[in-house]
């Protein structure tokens, strides 16, 4: 379980570029929930994920992961509980390292690293098994450099790496946005498959309202650094993009002017 309460964060405080990114953001994600997060540009989606993962520290508020207060902890100390896939397919893996070395890094996420060999024999079978589930033929290319793979392949491996060891929450930051439509569909399907199989708790930021409604069990919309609505269960079933827009306008008395949200 992960719970964020009243998170506030302002970038460039006291400068002309002062930008309040989070203005009292609160959200609790229960064990096994798959939450999709939408919002227009500047709504605070990425900042929220960065705050959860520790890449930015909030000015005030509290983040609790499985009964531990992680509000002040840097990224690497939260990594054992928080797994992450980035938007940029090149960001989640090391292109100068081989596929097996990348997986070996991920299998020790959040654990102590010693002086024994990183790529151990007993890992290899597990690596091959998980890679073969991607159906990309990567199970025979363990020694290849990550840089030889395409963006979609690298994102698929990033996803695999994030789910190689258990975590309290999996953060997906628009992880299909930089891929072509076909690859994006493949990675999204893989995402839902992995989350279902391993019963992961996940938070997926997406730019597409359609995607937000199609996958997951709950949808949250952010606007100006706050949650404007939060729907799940029966309320969410059969909902379409135009209903979401109506909901948003009713909540805020505003109309959505971000074309990409409508078109996505």
């Amino acid at each position, binding site marked *: 379980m992960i719970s964020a309460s009243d998170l506030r964060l302002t970038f460039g405080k006291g400068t002309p570029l002062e930008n309040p990114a989070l203005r009292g953001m609160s959200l609790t994600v229960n064990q096994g929930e798959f939450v999709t997060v939408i919002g227009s540009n500047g709504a605070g989606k990425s900042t929220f994920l960065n705050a959860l993962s520790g890449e930015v520290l909030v000015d005030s508020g509290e983040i609790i992961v499985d009964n531990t207060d992680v509000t002040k902890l840097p990224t690497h100390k939260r990594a054992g509980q928080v797994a992450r896939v*980035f938007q940029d397919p090149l*960001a989640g893996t*090391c292109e*100068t*390292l081989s596929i097996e070395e990348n997986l*070996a*890094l991920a299998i020790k*996420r959040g654990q102590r690293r*010693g002086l024994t060999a990183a790529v151990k024999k007993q890992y290899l079978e597990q690596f091959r098994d998980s890679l073969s589930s991607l159906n990309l033929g990567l199970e025979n290319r363990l020694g290849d450099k990550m840089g030889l793979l395409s963006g979609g392949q690298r994102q698929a491996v990033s996803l695999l790496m994030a789910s190689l060891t258990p975590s309290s929450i999996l953060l997906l930051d628009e992880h299909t946005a930089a891929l072509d439509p076909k690859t994006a569909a493949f990675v999204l399907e893989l995402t839902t498959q992995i989350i279902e199989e391993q019963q992961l708790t996940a938070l997926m930021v997406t730019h597409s309202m359609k995607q937000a409604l199609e996958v997951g069990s709950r949808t949250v919309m952010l606007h100006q650094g706050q949650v404007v609505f939060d729907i799940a269960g029966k309320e969410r079933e059969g909902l379409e993009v135009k209903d979401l827009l109506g909901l948003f306008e009713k909540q805020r008395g505003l109309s959505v002017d971000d074309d990409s949200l409508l078109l996505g």
Partner: protein
Amino acid sequence: MLSEIALYGAIETGLIYGLVAFGIYISFRVLDFPDLTVDGSFPLGAAVAAMLIIAGWNPWIATGAAILAGMAAGAVTALLNVKLKILNLLASILTMIALYSVNLRIMGRPNVALLTEETVLTPWYNLDLAYHHVPVLLFVIVVAVSLILLWRFMKSETGLAMRATGANPRMARAQGIATGAMIVLGVALSNGLVGLAGALFAQSQGAADVTMGVGVIVIGLASLIGGEAVITPSTVVRALLACVIGAIIYRLAIAFALNADFLGLQAQDLNLITAVLVTLAIVLPGVRTSVIGKLTRNKA
């Protein structure tokens, strides 16, 4: 042509600079941390080893102390960068400048002679070997052991974390790697190797001098880049071999240049030759590909 003694001398110095190149490989290549501390940690290693040997310490223990001194210098540079957020290049220049004073303090004077002292080389001279073969033999062993240890380290969990830190720090943090600690460890390790090189250099040359570090970074880089041009550094072990081979080739090239009378070069031209060689080593691989590119395009 090169005399046999000059040839072995070049290989001997090349092996020592192979250790420097290992250090520069860790900072520049693995961590992507341009570290100039080596110009100070090389004479630091020499000074520490020389003074302890004169004080009657076992030369191997004195050499070990030189490694620790180098590591401490590297850790200072890394901490200036990681904790005080000083730009890495500037942090290393600050440490390098400070070390000049530190080295003078350690030695108490600009240079210290070791000619009559017992060094790590002394027992080896009792072996049935030609005089100029001894340092080469010993340094081959030291370099080989360092290479194997470094290779094993880079393949270990911690070593892999260090490589990830340099290649993709954001990903490394997300995997739970304390990137700051990795930078401190890596830069310390790098300068420990350079301290070792300084200590061995002082013992084989018979003196430690406060100015002996000038240009070490450039020579180390020349070795690294030259070696990479000969052996593509596609794996860790190839990259480490490239360091040693590059350093020896560089030293041989210098020896040939200085010995070739028709060029009219003298010892004082060394730094100029070094700068030219480094420039060529950086530019040539690019020239080669563009020439090949042109040739193939013409064919097509």
